[in-house]
């Protein structure tokens, strides 16, 4: 049995700290992150607990004078954290792959060496658990993407991609909920509302839900 390096705790200025366990990105680790978030939210120094992909940002209510006690408490809480199995619904999203709304499908082809059809099948073939919400209102970070279609983020981020864009960034995939800048490779588009400020909570999807992409069309 290999011992994993201890999680990394680093600062985001005086506004927040970042907690990053080592190891592969897994759903079980994410479930422990959900548990840790729930625990840390009760601490007086912490205003918000924001899960990322197998990591956790803790925004300070008031930055503590000394960080060491908080760091010790955080490490201990992680050791004790058991996976929190948040079970949810499966949402189907129809996707039009390629064409005008999938301008970077060719870049995924050239990086992976796979053909368009295989990339699309591998992308639509998986069930994607929602790991975290972030990036923009209602945007879901998804786990479970086939490693064969992983493609690095773009060297120069694109100034604006439309809402509903389905993209690959590194080993992750996601769907944008509104128009905005992105460093990911956009391979297709879906129509769906992921955020409604009049609802409580305002997000359509939550950690514990899953997404399945359905191939509506492939434009070569």
């Amino acid at each position, binding site marked *: 049995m290999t011992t994993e390096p201890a999680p990394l705790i680093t600062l*985001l200025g005086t506004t927040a700290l970042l907690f990053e366990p080592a190891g592969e990105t897994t759903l079980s680790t994410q479930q422990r992150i959900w548990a840790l978030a729930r625990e840390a939210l009760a601490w007086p120094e912490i205003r918000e607990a924001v899960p990322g992909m197998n990591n956790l940002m803790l925004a300070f209510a008031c930055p503590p004078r000394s960080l060491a006690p908080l760091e010790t408490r955080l490490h201990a809480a992680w050791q004790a954290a058991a996976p929190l199995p948040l079970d949810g619904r499966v949402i189907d999203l129809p996707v039009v792959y390629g064409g005008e709304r999938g301008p970077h499908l060719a870049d995924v082809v050239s990086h992976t060496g796979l053909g368009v059809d295989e990339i699309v099948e591998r992308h639509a073939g998986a069930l994607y658990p929602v790991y975290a919400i*972030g990036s923009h209102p209602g945007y879901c970070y998804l786990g479970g993407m086939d490693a064969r279609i992983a493609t690095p983020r773009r060297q120069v981020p694109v100034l604006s991609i439309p809402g509903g864009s389905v993209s690959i960034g590194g080993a992750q995939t996601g769907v944008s909920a509104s128009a905005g800048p992105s460093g990911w490779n956009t391979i297709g588009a879906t129509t769906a509302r992921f955020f409604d400020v009049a609802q409580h909570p305002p997000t359509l999807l939550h950690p514990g839900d899953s997404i399945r992409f359905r191939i509506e069309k492939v434009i070569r």
Partner: protein
Amino acid sequence: MIEILSESALATVQDLGRLGALSWGVGVSGAMDPLALEAGNLLLGNAPDAAAIEVQIFPFQVRFDAACAFAVTGGGGPVRLGERELPPWWCGMAAAGEVLRLGVPKRGTTHGSRAYLCLAGGVDVPPVLNSRSTQLRGAFGGHEGRGLRRGDRLAAGTLGWGARPLWFGIVPPSLTLPCERDGLPAVRVLPAAEYDSFTPASQQAFWAEPWTITPQSDRYGYRLSGPVLEAIAFRELRSHGIVPGVIQVPRGGQPIVQMRDAQPSGGYPKIGTVIDADLWRLGQAPIGSRFRFIEASWDEALAAADETRRWLASIERLVGLHTLGTGGR
């Protein structure tokens, strides 16, 4: 009630930011210069986080449909109420029908790039998710979730004349809270998680060289030009939460400082984070201007935050004493 006379999409209603919604992917937004917004509110006796109009493009004109106390703080050019010129960082009373004009900054001045028009009682727009800041990406909050247009009408929280004396001002924080390095404005930075993944030469250059704010800079982020920052080995990072001030370095080696409308998460390597207490300095730095990064410790960063809070408290105290004799609020 005021009516916007200018066609200026880059003016938005902001307060001190929307906290508590990061887990829904909603970034904080809020004023690029929160010090100026808060000071303007203090001049008027408003709650410190009352909403105001952030103006980024000049000239910007509004007409007061009814008598209203107001303040203008932050940067920008000359301010005129009707025929009268207001000194910078000043409060006054507009009569019904008067036009307030925030003029174009004179060439060569470095008096800041964003102005804050505060109204008595704050700009009265409905709070959304506990804040009146404009969330542009999500198209909600502020005034209809968008920048202001000609013809838009905004109400002030408090109507009419009231008993407060107006027509006075404060010395701006650019003079009372200076931060410079080698003659250039500077901001303090705490190293971030990937600091050690940059070459020693790049680390040195990050602190030692001036950085220029390129025209591709706005409320989402400032793209800087300067020395190319090289990673020892470029890694793809897992998506993680970020905050305004985080300095990301994409593969091109030119840093991007995340600002108020930045995404609340990202995956590019981070070399450092501008401390919260210094974000207002960047918020006022004009496009094309140069500045320096100063390495700070945790204690120094907290001390800077304390200094800012003390300055605001002293302003509140002075304004309180000045308005005491005439019946206060």
